[in-house]
């Protein structure tokens, strides 16, 4: 059981490393960049832990599960007074995904978001982004569908190794 004396935010951050995105289980909530802050306040001889998160997409169905998982894992570690709050601004972007997260995605067979934002404008019939195949590293790929298994991914196929793969879209 964790002693509530002397706890540090660093402990909380390392516990949060074990909370995964239910849709993309190789990514932790830290890798995703959705944990914006961890605060510990002491009142009435008790530590209150506040975890501030931001949603990826407004309608992302995983957010409720993620909130619940954060609460559960902190309870397991003996923390009782837990508050999980949500902020919307600044809005989440795939730029906040960690480099480690991008590497884990690729190893899992999902092409990570391109480093340069290419999608957030109203330009019509835009050229498909050049997306690298996570299997053979070829850039000779094509988009099959704007949406893949979840809203945050598109479906691509590699023209060289012919494997289909998901691409985690820039956002």
């Amino acid at each position, binding site marked *: 059981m964790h002693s509530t004396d002397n706890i540090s935010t660093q402990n909380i951050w390392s516990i949060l490393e074990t909370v995964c995105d239910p849709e993309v289980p190789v990514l932790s909530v830290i890798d995703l960049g959705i944990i914006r802050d961890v605060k510990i306040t002491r009142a009435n001889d008790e530590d209150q832990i506040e975890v501030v998160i931001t949603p990826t997409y407004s309608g992302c*169905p995983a957010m409720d599960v993620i909130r619940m998982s954060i609460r559960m894992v902190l309870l397991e570690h003996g923390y009782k007074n837990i508050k999980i709050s949500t902020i919307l601004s600044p*809005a989440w972007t795939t730029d906040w995904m960690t480099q480690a997260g991008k590497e884990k995605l690729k190893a899992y067979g999902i092409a990570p978001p391109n480093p340069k934002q290419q999608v957030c*404008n109203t330009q019509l019939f835009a050229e498909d982004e050049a997306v690298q195949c996570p299997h053979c590293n070829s850039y000779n790929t094509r988009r099959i569908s704007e949406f893949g298994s979840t809203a945050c991914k598109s479906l691509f196929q590699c023209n060289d190794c012919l494997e289909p793969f998901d691409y985690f879209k820039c956002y």
Partner: protein
Amino acid sequence: MNETLYNYTLHLADNALILAQRNSEWCGHGPVLEQDIAITNISLDLIGQARSLYQYAAELSNNIFSSTTGARTATEDTLAYLREGRAYKNCLLVEQPNGDWAQTILRQFFFSTCQFFLYQRLQRSADSTLAAIAEKSLKEVTYHVRWSSEWVIRLGDGTEESRNRLLNALDDLWPFTGEMFTPAGYETDAVNLGFGVDVKAIKPLWEQRVNEIFAEATLSSPITGSEGVWMQSGGKEGVHTEQLGFILAEMQSMQRTFPGCEW
């Protein structure tokens, strides 16, 4: 101030929810799988926006009303599932039936283009919660504008069949576009209080975008030549077409039959 903010927030939330509910009727019925997924993902974006707005409206409602009347505590769910049609403040446009694919596309294009310019300005709202919701939603709405614009062009500049369907959709939907730019009382108050967006000011931007996309679609401007068309209104003040009743009957039936049920 608080009641204006509450009404204004509900109006934005209702627009998003009712259009989401309409679009979700396509789930499993889209013309091709990719577009079925696209339209239902747009639904999901709109439900997400509606949730943020209803959560805020519930907080405002509980601050305004509970202390005085002892009314039940509002939540995002009570606002969505337990209000009567008369209390809904969405524009008439979003409650119109899906019709064919052209009608759904054109409704989305007209609405998203307006919402894009509105959220762009709402990011600078004096109310920081509305500003944050607008900022978060704008990325999603940008995609909705792009997607629906491309489809308007594809249909207008497609076959004779697709073009006729789009023109029929235009006849049906045009009379519902004027309401978006005619402020309700709470919208005018919201502008004066510094947190609302002046919808009259975004009308020229919307018209310009509509003209550009229609020109690209090889169609004549719907704006010039429609001066005489009677514009319907009333939705923002709770006076709806018969369509809303059917939407709510389906959407609210579970909560009204089994109050408070969860799954």
